[in-house]
């Protein structure tokens, strides 16, 4: 379990805007191993989403090197190496849940039988069996986001990139989905990169927490979580959990002092 999935060396990205260049990422060094659950946490503007988008080949880095599965992000994207979950479910409103999950499979040219089977499997993984024929607007926000996770799982990429997927949901739904996500991670052995701005979410989910700070976006601290793989919700009351959360908070505070 030591195969390296993502490796970034001195990765920088500068957005040229009309008034001043924005340093979204500045010399980021990071390694993600196979099977890791990595959370990226930091205030808005710290480049956590940008980093995820660079991995996904949705943004091009200005300098530095990044490899995904040992190849460039573009090659990885073309090999369909990852599934991406956006902040908003962005399901197509004219497609049923089933058809939304089938979308990547249609594009990738799977056979009709294979599409049917994989769609069903993915929907089972996110506990949405029985909602195949519903349209997105007939589902709650949490269910829509689960459908969008099912869509990213359908073609069975080993890497899952999630950009604040539960950010728009209320806390009760979020707790529930976090639990389900951990179960899913355990069952599928995927590598997950997860962007969030919730400390408890990051600590609860991750094997590795990357704390980032803004302007320029850089990594402040990387915390390897000592928490066991089996995590009931009440682990959040434990001392270990509180210690890690404290360290994350310290990191975030240290990052912010540069801002003033």
């Amino acid at each position, binding site marked *: 379990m030591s195969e390296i999935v993502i490796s970034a060396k001195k990765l920088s990205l500068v957005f040229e805007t009309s008034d001043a260049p924005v340093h979204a990422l500045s010399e980021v060094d990071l390694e993600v191993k196979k099977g890791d659950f990595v959370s990226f946490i930091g205030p808005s503007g710290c480049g956590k989403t940008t980093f995820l988008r660079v991995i*996904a*080949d*949705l943004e091009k880095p200005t300098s530095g090197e990044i490899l995904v599965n040992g190849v460039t992000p573009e090659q990885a*994207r*073309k090999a*369909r190496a*990852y*599934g*991406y979950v*956006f*902040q*908003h479910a*962005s399901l*197509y*409103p*004219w*497609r*049923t849940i089933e058809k939304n999950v089938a*979308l*990547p499979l*249609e*594009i*990738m040219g799977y056979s009709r039988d294979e599409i049917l089977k994989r769609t069903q499997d993915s929907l089972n993984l996110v506990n949405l069996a029985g909602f195949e024929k519903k*349209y997105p*607007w007939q589902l709650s926000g949490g269910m829509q986001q689960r459908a969008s996770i099912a869509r990213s799982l359908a073609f069975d990429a080993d890497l899952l990139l999630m950009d604040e997927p539960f950010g728009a949901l209320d806390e009760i739904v979020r707790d529930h989905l976090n639990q389900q996500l951990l179960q899913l991670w355990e069952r599928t052995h995927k590598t997950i990169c997860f962007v969030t701005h919730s400390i408890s979410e990051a600590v609860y989910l991750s094997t590795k927490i990357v704390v980032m700070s803004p302007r320029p976006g850089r990594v402040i601290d990387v915390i390897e979580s000592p928490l066991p793989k089996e995590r009931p919700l009440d682990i959040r009351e434990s001392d270990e959990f509180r210690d890690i959360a404290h360290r994350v908070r310290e990191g975030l505070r240290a990052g912010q002092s540069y801002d003033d």
Partner: protein
Amino acid sequence: MTRDGKLIPVLTILIVIVAIWYVAVVWLNAPFEYDQAERAGSKIEFNQMVKNTMSQKRPVLPSAHQVFSEIWNTTILKKITSKRSLVYHAWVTLSVTLLGFLMGSIFGIILSISIVHNKAMDKSVMPWVITSQTIPILAIAPMIIVVLNAIGFQGLIPKAFISTYLSFFPIVVGMVKGLRSPDQAQLDLMHTYNSSKSQILWKLRWPSSMPYLFTSLKVAVAASLVGAIVAELPTGAVAGLGARMLAGSYYGQTVQIWSALFVAAIVAAGLVIIVGIAHNMVLKRMGQLDSQAGGVS
């Protein structure tokens, strides 16, 4: 579709319009009656005058019942094959309208797809598309008809081209907007699947553009009818609603002009309603009908 809720307001406006119409009939046709009376060397009673203005042979403004009895006489009571049947004339215009509308829609859709996918097309063609509509159609219609006749196109086709000319424009403008309506996240999603341009077009851009398409089609079908009527004017006024209007104006047959006008309006309304029904059917198939308030018109 809460048609019931609209009935009373719509009827109220209709009554107001009809009332204004009849007042205008008396007002505009009265001078002729006074003139007649003066020539005969007699005085005319007000009541008699009002009665007469409703049934003149060549009124300045015909009354509603004159127009509708003319429509009744020339549609229901005439054989369709007769040259005086408005159904015959309406069919002539309608066939041109539909052919022009079809060509305009296809041309407009193809043009909009290439504009969205090609920067050079966007920069070079779009200004010309807009310029094309600043040329008055009445000026260009006879030229198109004459030129096409000279190179051997006759009958429906030259007239349909005028309809095409008017109807492709709203389609291009609407569809360019519609095909560009998907947001960045939706496009990013397709990008992560490494999908081809044609997959993005058919699986994302095309379905997203449906509301824009049908709004454009409604405008285009009405414009197409206008084009068909205008196209009939320089063809020597043989047949069609435009020809009826032109012939009517030659001979001062205002009742004939107005009845052709009303039939044209009814045909236009019918076409727009048909497009609206098609829109609703598509929305239903896309599972959208309950989330958006979709009316027929």
